[in-house]
């Protein structure tokens, strides 16, 4: 039972971290990164090859290169790979393309990546994927269960760190510029914003966060294969961001929590329903309808983006009394 709780906690935390990264790209800057799951995969594979050791040590698995480095180096390497990949993909698709083209090209890029890994079995063990990936913190001596809770705790700390980074970025002038790019690219350019730079930055930071989520996930699961990062997976994360409330870190976390949480429970609840084929289909149909209802009734998400007000300090030339009056008027 406790094992199960650790899994739920982990998946929710990982989902939240990934959703925050996506929120920076999509929620703040408005980049439609339909290849987002590819960055999670890049992080997962990076950590895998940085922990599995030399390929010859894993006779049955084929991968192009491998080594074994202690925590947290694999995670940091993953973030670096995610960031670099983000810049590369950004250079390809963001620099010159229109928004809708960007979205479609990203979709195609994600697909290319899945195909590449599947087709080339010597690269990352093809469709079978990599397995037996060791868990981090080898030196910690704890019982199995306590180890897992320890892992959850470390992930929670990482999530808090990511939250802090996200909060700093979104609350800063940089975050404001990102939202300006999202709202009106042409106007942002006309005011001197280097939109390309902002987008690439977003791709790099978001890519690093996604890769971090993948790195944690792969060491928790211990395996990773192309079936786990097909392009529709990205849509699921987008849904978490949209449902929770794009541009609102709390909302995004809530969205990820709801989506991941129910997903986990679903695996328990689903089988008991009998004849898998028809029931499954009916459930899917219901879910499709539910999404539409959600989009109709809560178009800005459960927790919409907050309006950012600027507290007026005493230093301001506006009399304090007036400020108070305004505040009261707003309720």
């Amino acid at each position: 039972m406790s094992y199960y709780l650790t899994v739920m906690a982990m998946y929710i935390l990982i989902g939240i971290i990934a959703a925050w990264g996506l929120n920076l790209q999509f929620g703040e800057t408005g980049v439609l990164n339909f290849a987002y799951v590819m960055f999670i995969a890049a992080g997962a594979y990076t950590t895998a090859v940085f922990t599995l050791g030399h390929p010859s040590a894993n006779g049955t698995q084929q991968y192009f290169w491998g080594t074994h480095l202690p925590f947290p180096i694999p995670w940091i390497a993953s973030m670096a790979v995610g960031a670099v990949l983000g810049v590369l993909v950004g250079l390809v698709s963001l620099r010159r393309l229109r928004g809708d083209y960007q979205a479609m090209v990203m979709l195609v890029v994600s697909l290319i990546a899945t195909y590449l890994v599947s087709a080339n079995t010597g690269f990352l063990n093809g469709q079978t994927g990599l397995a037996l990936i060791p868990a981090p913190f080898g030196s910690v001596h704890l019982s199995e269960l306590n180890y897992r809770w320890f892992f959850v705790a470390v992930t929670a700390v990482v999530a808090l760190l990511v939250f802090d980074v996200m909060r700093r970025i979104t609350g800063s002038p940089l975050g404001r510029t990102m939202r300006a790019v999202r709202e009106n690219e042409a106007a942002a350019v006309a005011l001197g914003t280097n939109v390309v730079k902002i987008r690439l930055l977003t791709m790099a930071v978001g890519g690093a966060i996604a890769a971090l989520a993948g790195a944690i996930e792969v060491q928790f699961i211990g395996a990773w294969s192309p079936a786990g990062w097909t392009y529709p997976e990205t849509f699921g994360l987008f849904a978490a961001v949209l449902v929770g409330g794009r541009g609102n870190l709390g909302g995004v976390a809530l969205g990820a929590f709801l989506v991941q949480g129910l997903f986990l429970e679903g695996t328990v609840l689903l089988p008991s329903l009998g004849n898998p084929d028809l029931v499954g289909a009916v459930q899917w149909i219901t879910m499709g309808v539910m999404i539409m209802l959600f989009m109709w009734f809560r178009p800005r998400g459960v927790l919409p983006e907050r309006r950012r007000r600027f507290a007026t300090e005493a230093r301001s030339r506006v009399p304090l009394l007036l400020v108070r009056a305004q505040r009261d008027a707003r309720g």
Partner: protein
Amino acid sequence: MNQVLSSLGFGIVTASILLPAAIGFTLQFSATNVLNIGFGSQMTLAAFIGYVCTSHGIGLWYALVLAGVFGGVTSLLLNRFLLTPFMRRGTTFFGMIVITIALSLVLEYTIEAIWGPVSVFYPLSTGGIVHVGAMSFTAEQLVIIGIGVALALATHAMLRYTRTGKAMRAVAGNAPLARASGVPAQRIVDLAWLLSGFMGGAAGVMLGISLASVSFTMGDTMLIEIIAAAVLGGVGQVYGAMLGSVVIGVLLEESAVVLSGAYAPISAFVVLVIVLLIRPTGLFAGTAKAKGVAA
């Protein structure tokens, strides 16, 4: 060399299926600016309607037409009663994508609920092979090519020579402006969705013939190829979609010759990305630029 030539023939067959599908996709996109992820599922649904027709003794090619009509009508209704209301509510470009994903879920699993997860088949003749140089085609493949080309020509003629077609181009170019100049935009949009649904439906049946089976994930699996063909030509550009279909169709087959089957889709998509790097709005970028939409 021989292999390259014969694969060219196969590429033409694939292109002929992509052709109506990509035209349909791009028509929808240009008329309403909706990136319809559900397009593949709509194709599949029409393909299954075609199956219902053939299993009731209707000839395959009549079934194709009926499936096309069915596809057109459902497409029109979906736009009218599902997508348009969301658009009116101010749902964003991405929000609309999520709606169409949900739509594709509903359609796909409705199909599964009705017809089950296994494939169904059209009655196909096991006739001989027609050789054209190094290329060889079955009778059905020749008809598929014929239909694909005919649909493309018909679209061309309509856009070029009819009032409706011109109005459609105007709406695609700039909907508010077209409306201001007296084009009945809603009617044109309806028509665009009707037509694109018809194209998709026909393509669905053609795909079912080519695949020799019809399954509930069929159209969805094709979606990326369709999008690639549309993007390659320049989204919203009907002629671009035609060119894109041919390029993608031929590339898919030829790269299987040059590289290997495992890499065929990769190379087709890589070419797409490279083309877009050189021409950021697709091969038919000219008009898009004139409209001021391209940077």
